């Protein structure tokens, strides 16, 4: 086969150029440590890397969101802990005050401490986060939520709750509105309340009110009325009770002090002797705010217990106060346990996110980063073949017929 002389050079040149281009590409990779510098190097890998990088960015955002939620929830947890402490102290005071040895004066001293505690409670409920936003104002974070007025404490916030996204499909509530924490505490035992009529003249008072075993309380408004049937020569004095819903009778029976009266799922134990026409209202529990409960207790402390009727009024009221305080404590502790669960959820999610981030980084590195061992050996190989090409050219070009002429 005939070969033109300049074909040697043509072929050699193009081969050298190809090898040098490949050498430059490997050199570029080795110096940057990246397998992909623009999408052309690996289009599918670049697009996938982009989505992985976006995933990592989003995880970073979730981390910041989680930190924010954790900070606010921890502050809320602190406030709730202070609230629990204050309510526990008030409950101790209530038990102390319920003791029959207390006098009107000693109860006055208890009332003074209770008033201080109430002020503290309101301050706690008006806590702010580090950025000056109120923790318990719902979404009206710039409005002081609890304001003491003549009629009691009013709530100026709203019922809004805020969430932070901590994972693609998971948001965490980063607080509770003051309405849910302090305002919407079920009154009574949580199912119903028992309230003596103000016109009662007997000494009857209730000592415990529970929900009967196995029967839920049937929501409604009931009136429990006592009637004393005086003794006749043939019969002893008998006290009867009748419960009705509006005008409709629902249950009735006889009463002896210390007896538990059960109707419509309510089980109420009474002490003392009612007078005819004495009434107790048994009504579905409603919401009563914590401050009102404490205020009621302070009001109860002012009851004059010089008379027997006064004593039974005090007893009825302090019983109701204690029940409401228990409800408040239970309610706050429920909220606290929810906050705790959310904090634990955040920690758990952040652990998950860290695992995912690690996995994403590993994949990203697999796509983008250079395998140095392979790259260096390819570099060596390329250099060797370049050298070989140069030597071969030098050898072939040194032979010409003209040299021997």
């Amino acid at each position: 086969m005939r070969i033109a002389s300049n074909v040697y050079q043509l072929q050699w040149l193009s081969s050298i150029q190809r090898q040098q281009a490949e050498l430059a590409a490997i050199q570029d990779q080795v110096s940057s440590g990246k397998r992909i510098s623009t999408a052309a190097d690996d289009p599918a890998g670049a697009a996938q890397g982009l989505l992985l990088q976006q995933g990592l960015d989003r995880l970073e955002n979730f981390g910041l969101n989680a930190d924010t939620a954790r900070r606010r929830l921890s502050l809320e947890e602190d406030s709730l802990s202070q609230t629990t402490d204050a309510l526990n102290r008030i409950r101790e005071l209530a038990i102390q005050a319920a003791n029959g040895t207390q006098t009107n004066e000693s109860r006055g001293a208890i009332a003074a401490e209770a008033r201080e505690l109430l002020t503290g409670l309101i301050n706690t409920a008006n806590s702010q986060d580090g950025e000056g936003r109120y923790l318990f104002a719902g979404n009206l974070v710039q409005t002081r939520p609890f304001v003491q007025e003549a009629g009691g404490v009013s709530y100026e916030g709203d019922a809004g709750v805020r969430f932070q996204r901590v994972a693609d499909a998971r948001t965490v509530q980063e607080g509770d509105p003051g309405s849910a924490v302090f305002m919407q505490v079920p009154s009574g035992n949580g199912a119903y309340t028992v309230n003596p009529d103000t016109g009662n003249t007997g000494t009857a008072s209730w000592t415990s009110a529970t929900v009967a075993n196995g029967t839920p309380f049937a929501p409604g408004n009931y009136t429990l009325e006592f009637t004393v049937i005086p003794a006749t020569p043939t019969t002893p004095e008998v006290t009867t009770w009748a419960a009705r819903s509006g005008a409709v009778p629902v249950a009735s029976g006889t009463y002896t002090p210390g007896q538990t009266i059960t109707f419509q799922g309510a089980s109420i134990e009474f002490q003392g002797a009612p007078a005819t026409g004495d009434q107790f209202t048994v009504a579905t529990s409603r919401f009563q705010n914590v401050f009102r409960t404490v205020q009621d207790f302070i009001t109860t402390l002012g009851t004059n217990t010089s008379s027997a009727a006064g004593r039974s009024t005090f007893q009825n009221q302090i019983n109701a106060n204690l029940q409401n305080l228990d409800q408040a404590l239970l309610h706050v502790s429920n909220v606290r346990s929810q906050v705790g669960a959310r904090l634990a959820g955040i920690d758990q999610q952040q652990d998950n996110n860290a695992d995912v981030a690690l996995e994403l980084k590993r994949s990203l590195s697999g796509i983008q980063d250079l395998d140095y061992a392979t790259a260096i050996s390819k570099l060596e190989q390329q250099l060797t073949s370049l050298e070989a090409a140069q030597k071969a050219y030098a050898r072939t070009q040194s032979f010409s017929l003209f040299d021997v002429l």
Partner: protein
Amino acid sequence: MSGTISNGLSALMAAQRALQTTSNNIANANTAGYVRQRIDFVEQPGTPLGRITIGAGVAVADVSRVYDQFLTDNLRSSTSMEQRYAAFGTFATRLDTILGNPETGVSAAVQRFFDQVEAVGRDPTSIAQRQQLLLEGDSLASRLQQLDSQLNGLGNEIDGRLEKAADTINQLAGQIADVNAQVMSSGNNPAPSLLDKRDELLKALGSQIDVTTVRQADGSVNVLVGSGQSLVLGSRAARMATVPDTYDGSRLQLAIDNGGGNLQNISTKVNGGVVGGLLAFRSDVLDGARRDIGQLAVGLADAFNTQHRQGMDLQGNLGGDFFTTTRPLTSNALTNTSNAVLAADIADASALEGHDYELRFNGAAWSVLDRQTGAAVTAAGAGTLASPLVFAGLSVAVSSGTPNAGDRFLVQPLSNAITDFGVALGSPVEIAAAAPLVSRAGDTNASQATVSAPVMTDVNDPILQSVIGNTPPVTVTIRFDSPTTYSVFTPTDIVGPFPYTSGADISYGGLTVQVSGAPQTGDRFYVDGGAAGSGDNSNLLALSQVAQRGFFAGGTQSVSDLGADIVATVGSTANRASNEIKVQQALREQAEIDLQNISGVNLDEEASNMLRYQQAYLAASKVISVADGLFQNLLQIVGR
């Protein structure tokens, strides 16, 4: 005796010519386009002497080019393809640098914007964070505009290169016509160098544009371009020029003078050479990349705006558009005979396909053609304002004038998408971070029944509108007339009673809410418009997901997917181009080697020829010398 001398002389002359040819081959061994020449000898017919004929020496029959037409044409066409992919690849690589870098591309800018959406979500009432979100929106817009202007710059550069290519083509065509004229005038014996020159010129022309050559009997070569338009006809060359695009005057197309002085656009018919590469890059890649970015901008703006309008701003008003949106560009063909103008709107951004459409009016009806696929598109409607043409997420109508039959219009839905993209909000308080409705249970309720967060179902409902942002605001009240029935009312309207089911939807006045639990007679639940200054972030939580939600292609492709697709597309274009360049380069090199192996000079061969002809020359000299000696001897004998 004289026969011997004349034979010797003829051999001497032949060897001399042969040595000249060889030396010319050696001299031009490195001349581009040189075709080696070969000397052909022929024996001279002898004079018959009775029964025998003695030969009469040698003569040079021809000095011919060692030439292969097929290989020459092959080299020209492979050079043409190589140049096409080189030009295409240069631009594809530059596009890849602009859009394909993960750190500076579109997706990074979009991601930064959404990072700030999350930051506002963490502290929704912070004016500083909100301000920063507006700034991030601005910088997203300016990043997109920057990218778009870089792409536009590539387009302008292509125009400039087309103009330059047209000049070069005209020059080369002129020179080829000149050579043709010389060849034709030299009869059947054109100088080899003339033919070499013409082949070189044709190759140079081929690297600008793909050409077809037709050899004529008179030795001239006719050159055709496009779909058979003659560029060179014998000794006459036609003129090529750039002309403005039919729809877009700022873009240039390549045209050829068809003889009558009319310039005919042949852009779509050109395939090879620099011009073919430039045109292919512009129509197949650059326009597509610009439309893709446009589609991303339109989709992002539409999806973000839709969600933003579901929220409430810091002043208690319903959210407006966060981003400004674009209107499709409509242009008239230069050939239109009427002054009718079309107006187009985006009816459904998620249905946009990223294509351009040509609309033709036949005097009675419209037809729509997809410019990218070339397929006809079915469009509903009559094309009037009352009944616009609806297709591919667009709604198009004649807004003024009356079209004539044969009028054509171009609709480019995404042409202005980037230029028009920007932040529409003027103030940080207008960012609609909050849910627009709030609910609460009455303070004096006799139960613990709860009410859910309300949801807007019809933003245009007058009752809903009076609840939000009205002064004084209207409250929607749900009142339980009994534990099992409820009524819903505002100060001016009441509906009910309805039977109550715990947790069931209660829909009224464009909003929906649920009450759960065991409400008692007289219990009330209220729905109000969110208050100004609300720190709610529920709408931001939804906004932060917008880029991830399926939007395009029937909800299967999200904005962020499209961003990744853009990178993959420009990357694979550049990748394919660089592979194609390697292939074409190898093909061209092989064609060159094949041709060189036939037509190129081999110096060893020439060296051996030189020796051969040198010996022949010496031998011929010897023949003359011998004949001379014989002659001298004879003279001596006769002279004695």
